């Protein structure tokens, strides 16, 4: 199993560890509820070094990105990032990703899901017929997400970059805790605000940065956060998780990702998606909350009042902090309207739920 430069720290901190995407990762430390609340109220640190980073360089780098992704990367100027999808040829999604414009029309970074690094690399490589310089820097890149309302206050004293006033989906490169060439971006997967910090796994850098963050965050009650709370936090915001809510068989139009699908250019399946936009989709990803007691889980059936199958749950949990069970799932479009009553098949029972707006709450 692969490790990250922080694996030993997680173990020393007593984290519950498990395999995720081939990496030994922390699932929880003090408990998912406690960690979830810490991020919503104060700040938490996630080791997400397992994620993949590709650097694309050269005069045709933007052209390559434009031909493989759904969002319009030509809108990006240096220091800006965007959320996007890599579509396949069959109307599905190879991966969802972030595109960072490091130097306009020349240098870009793509941040992809750990489980898809090889798949994405091979897929994109097939389109690289104009000699774009491609570097897979995943193995030597550390990524710490510092998230929560206090996150930027904690990071600010460690750097000369203006982290406190960094607009959402922008980033800077500079020194953090004395480590040079660190990329700090105002992004995250929690909806709680904060930054993501990318740096090379070199010398003492991982130790220095980790320790500096926890030292600076001590008075704010900063906590290490595992993948368990990462999942409940993203689900509370209605963010898709690749492999659960989106995959090779789901369209961005079905998944509510039309806002990152731009038809000012062509890309794999763009004709399929444009037709779906015009004519509507047969099923839609919706958020729902349970009316009766029960917790929805991935792959549980969704039925209508008459017991007819209308879809499947893709993600579900009991929301930490409030006594409410929520989920997301695909349902036939006729049942996708807000407040529609649906039924989740939990073990041998049909439990009432209703479609709600995303994000939850």
């Amino acid at each position: 199993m692969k490790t990250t430069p922080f694996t030993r720290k997680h173990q020393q901190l007593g984290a519950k560890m498990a395999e995720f995407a081939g990496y030994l990762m922390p699932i929880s430390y003090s408990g998912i509820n406690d960690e979830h609340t810490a991020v919503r109220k104060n700040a938490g640190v996630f080791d997400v070094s397992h994620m993949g980073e590709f650097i694309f360089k050269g005069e045709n780098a933007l052209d390559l990105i434009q031909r493989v992704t759904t969002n319009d990367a030509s809108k990006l100027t240096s220091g800006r990032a965007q959320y996007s999808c890599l579509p396949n040829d069959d109307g599905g999604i190879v991966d969802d990703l972030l595109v960072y414009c490091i130097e306009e029309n020349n240098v870009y970074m793509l941040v992809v899901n750990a489980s898809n690094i090889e798949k994405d690399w091979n897929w994109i490589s097939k389109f690289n017929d104009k000699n774009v310089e491609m570097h897979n820097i995943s193995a030597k890149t550390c990524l710490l997400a510092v998230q929560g309302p206090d996150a930027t206050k904690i990071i600010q004293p460690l750097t000369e970059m203006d982290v406190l006033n960094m607009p959402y989906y922008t980033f800077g490169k500079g020194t953090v805790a004395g480590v040079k060439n660190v990329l700090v971006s105002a992004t995250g997967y929690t909806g709680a605000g904060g930054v993501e910090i990318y740096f090379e796994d070199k010398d003492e850098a991982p130790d220095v940065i980790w320790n500096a963050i926890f030292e600076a965050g001590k008075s704010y009650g900063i906590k290490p956060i595992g993948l368990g709370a990462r999942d409940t936090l993203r689900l509370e915001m209605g963010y898709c998780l690749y492999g659960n809510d989106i995959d090779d068989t789901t369209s961005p139009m079905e998944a509510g990702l039309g806002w990152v699908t731009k038809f000012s250019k062509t890309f794999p399946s763009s004709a399929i998606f444009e037709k779906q936009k015009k004519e509507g989709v047969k099923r839609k990803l919706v958020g729902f909350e349970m009316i009766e007691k029960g917790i929805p889980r991935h792959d549980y059936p969704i039925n209508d009042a008459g017991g007819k199958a209308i879809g499947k749950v893709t993600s579900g949990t009991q929301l930490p902090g409030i006594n409410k069970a929520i989920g997301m799932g695909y349902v036939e479009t006729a049942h996708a309207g807000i407040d529609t009553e649906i039924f989740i098949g939990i073990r041998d029972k049909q439990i009432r739920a209703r479609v709600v707006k995303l994000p939850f709450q």
Partner: protein
Amino acid sequence: MNFPKDLRYTKDHEWIRLDGDVATIGITDFAQRELGDIVYVEIETAGKTLEAESVFGTVEAVKTVSDLFLPVAGTITELNPALAATPEVVNSDPYGEGWMIKMKVKNVADIHELMDADAYAAVAGE
């Protein structure tokens, strides 16, 4: 981890406390740690007579769901009423306030076949 000596245990990580022919059953300290924050205990088998190894309920943590297996044959007589409102007591006090059911055991001898604390500690990897 804590495995009281006066209890019996199963490989499914349940504990059994015997008093006459009445057994109190819950999940072990190891089980509650593995599950994490417990948010819902669903047991709808009160009054039922079940065989050993039957599923008598379900425990839901934030991220996982796990079946509860009856350690020995018998009749379920009582559910812990506190679990409906405060399932988290299974985490905080698995052998006390976090008990799950009481049952009338069919053959008391079956209980003595179950693991003692030392044998269970080995199963739990202690």
